[in-house]
């Protein structure tokens, strides 16, 4: 059995940052400079009044490394808050993918059937292609994409994970959210 300090954990971390030039480079530079993993990273402004963006990142490492990552993030000057959604109670995680399938005949029909099961929507269509929009956990997206592969999967775009804590817990201050 691996020792506690050798177990690799995967964590989803939400970071509230000042939306200023270079802030994303600072976060990414921290990961590359210190040799941490980034499995997924998304960023967008969430609080225009205070000029704040939210970065959601999925990372993996030993417990000591995960703690280091959070502390190093917290130390960056434009970082307002760091929350470990994996540690701090339950959270909801979602990802969106646009999946392009180029096919005709049975494959085309089968792809539409599977899309229906996964509650994927057709957002673009030609006589020999579909583009599906599918939302859900990363695992669900993996499954959908896996099924589409033999059916003519031609192009793929994924957003990376966004996540939020369940219940009334917030990263933004309540006033800012309103």
């Amino acid at each position, binding site marked *: 059995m691996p020792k506690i300090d050798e177990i690799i954990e995967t964590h989803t971390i939400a970071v509230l*940052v*000042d939306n200023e*030039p*270079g802030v994303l*480079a*600072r976060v990414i*530079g921290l990961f590359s*400079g210190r040799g941490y993993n980034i499995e997924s990273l998304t960023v967008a402004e969430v609080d225009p009044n*205070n000029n704040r963006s939210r970065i959601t990142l999925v990372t993996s490492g030993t417990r*000591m490394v995960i*703690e*280091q990552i959070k*502390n*190093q993030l*917290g*130390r960056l*000057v*434009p*970082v*307002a808050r760091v929350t470990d959604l994996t540690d701090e109670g339950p959270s909801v995680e979602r990802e969106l993918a646009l999946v392009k399938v180029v096919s005709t005949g049975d494959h085309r029909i089968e792809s539409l059937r599977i899309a229906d099961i996964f509650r994927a929507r057709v957002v673009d269509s030609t006589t020999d292609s579909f583009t599906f929009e599918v939302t859900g956990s990363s695992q669900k997206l993996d499954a959908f994409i896996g099924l589409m592969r033999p059916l003519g999967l031609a192009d793929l775009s994924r957003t990376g994970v966004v996540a939020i804590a369940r219940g009334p817990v917030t990263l933004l201050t309540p006033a800012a959210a309103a």
Partner: protein
Amino acid sequence: MSEQKMTGAEIVLKALADQGVEVIFGYPGGAVLPIYDAIFNQNHIRHILVRHEQGAVHAAEGYARSTGKVGAVLVTSGPGATNAVTGLTDALMDSIPLVCLTGQVPTHLIGNDAFQECDTTGITRPCTKHNYLVKDVKRLARTIHEAFYVARTGRPGPVVVDLPKDVQFGTGPYTPPEHVEHKTYRPRVDPDMEVVEKAVEVIASARRPIFYTGGGIINSGPRAAELLAKFVRMTGFPITNTLMGLGGYPAHDEQFLGMLGMHGTYEANMAMHGCDVMVCIGARFDDRVTGRLDAFSPNSFKIHVDIDRSSINKNVHVDVPIVGDCARVLDAMIEVWNRRKFTSDQVALNDWWAQIGLWRARKSLRFHQDEGDDAVIKPQYAIKRLAELTAGKDVYFTTEVGQHQMWAAQYIPFDEPNRWMTSGGLGTMGYGLPASIGVQLAHPDSLVIDVAGEASTMMVLQELGTMAQYRLNCKVFILNNRWMGMVRQWQELLHGERYSESYSEALPDFVKLAEAFGITGLRASKKGEVDDVIKKMIETPGPVVVDMQVCKTENCFPMIPSGAAHNEMLLGPGDQGEVSEEGMVMV
């Protein structure tokens, strides 16, 4: 509030003056000419012209470390900025507060590969605490004030402000510093009292305790050193300092065990290894201090005080982490100790001191100097005499990096903070000579000595010109062994005495070299000359270069070979230590 309109360059100078800047170290160039023009037109801030931008940053570091104030640097775009990078990285590693203003090509040319353009904010992002590109003159004053605030507060560090030339020419309003607060950055300085209570309980119950303190004590200000001395004396515990922390506790005090770490004293390292409670204040369990991590102080309960949360549990797991400013935490600890009427376990402590006495009796800093005036000078002897002949004087020391640096740390006793400036984290050869310039400008009536090696000095020789220009009372005390001594020592220990490229070939005559710069050069090549040369160096006003020709083969002991533990020290050349394969990989 009526708003004054000023040019960007004038705003820069006013902001610097309002931030209390008295001296700025710099080098002009195309992209900072408007600021140099504004410097010409004012009398508040003195500009010191260095000979290379790296020297400007090290000089500002020397200024900052010897005063506790923020050092200021002004360089041009492109090569000016890239030359500053080594100094910025050095300041980041050693937590030195600096603001470095860099010129930049005009905003409309940014990204066009313009003449002397570089991506300054991109290049300096990983080697600064924070950096800014000011694209609008309206934001200029605010940004400079913010830069000083960020550099000075929390864990201090270097901040770069990149200033496009059109912003320097543009006109805008001036915002005074009192209106500026960073939107997000709020460093934590006050400790969690519950945790402090718990820590002090453990401290009071300790049987084999040790204080292990570092540069955080110096950075926190003189009050932290006072409180540390008070608390250490109240408890009666032994204390050791890191390289960065020397002077944080009086070296002459009985409770002081000397420096710890790779070239620390035997008693300090053995006490770290054998302690039951370790109180680390303002130090960061650096690999030079810990040696082999899995064998580091295996049985101790560890308390760690640091202003930077990310320093805690980075290398070594600690039992009680306390995030806060050293002075405030010490204040709180003393308050708890007094309020709860704690006392140390005197019986256990006496046994512990008896054990430490046995370690001390090994005299790990002993060295052999041949008698007789014609004897070859041992570098340790030269430094020891330097320390003795400057004792009681108002003196500051800087160093370069290598064997001489470790000997200086071992043999010069520092009784107060801010007197010792050395490149600890980055280990920058060529740090000490320019740093001594900054120290001297901050303390014009004091004696400033750069304990140097000949190889380090060769890296920054040009700054002798700066010393000469301003007639600075800086002494460059070169321990000339004609080798990159530390490199040679490692090649001897780890690489079968194959001395690859570590010999200082084709050295200049340092006395003549000094004279070529119009400054005094002195030389000693045998033991009998050491005292006279040191005395003459001290008596001679203005800059002096001393070529102290020392034993070529001396190695720096005691030593924890890399990859070894604290209790596996080599005490002298006779000790045959085994270096593990793991240790070979480490530096």
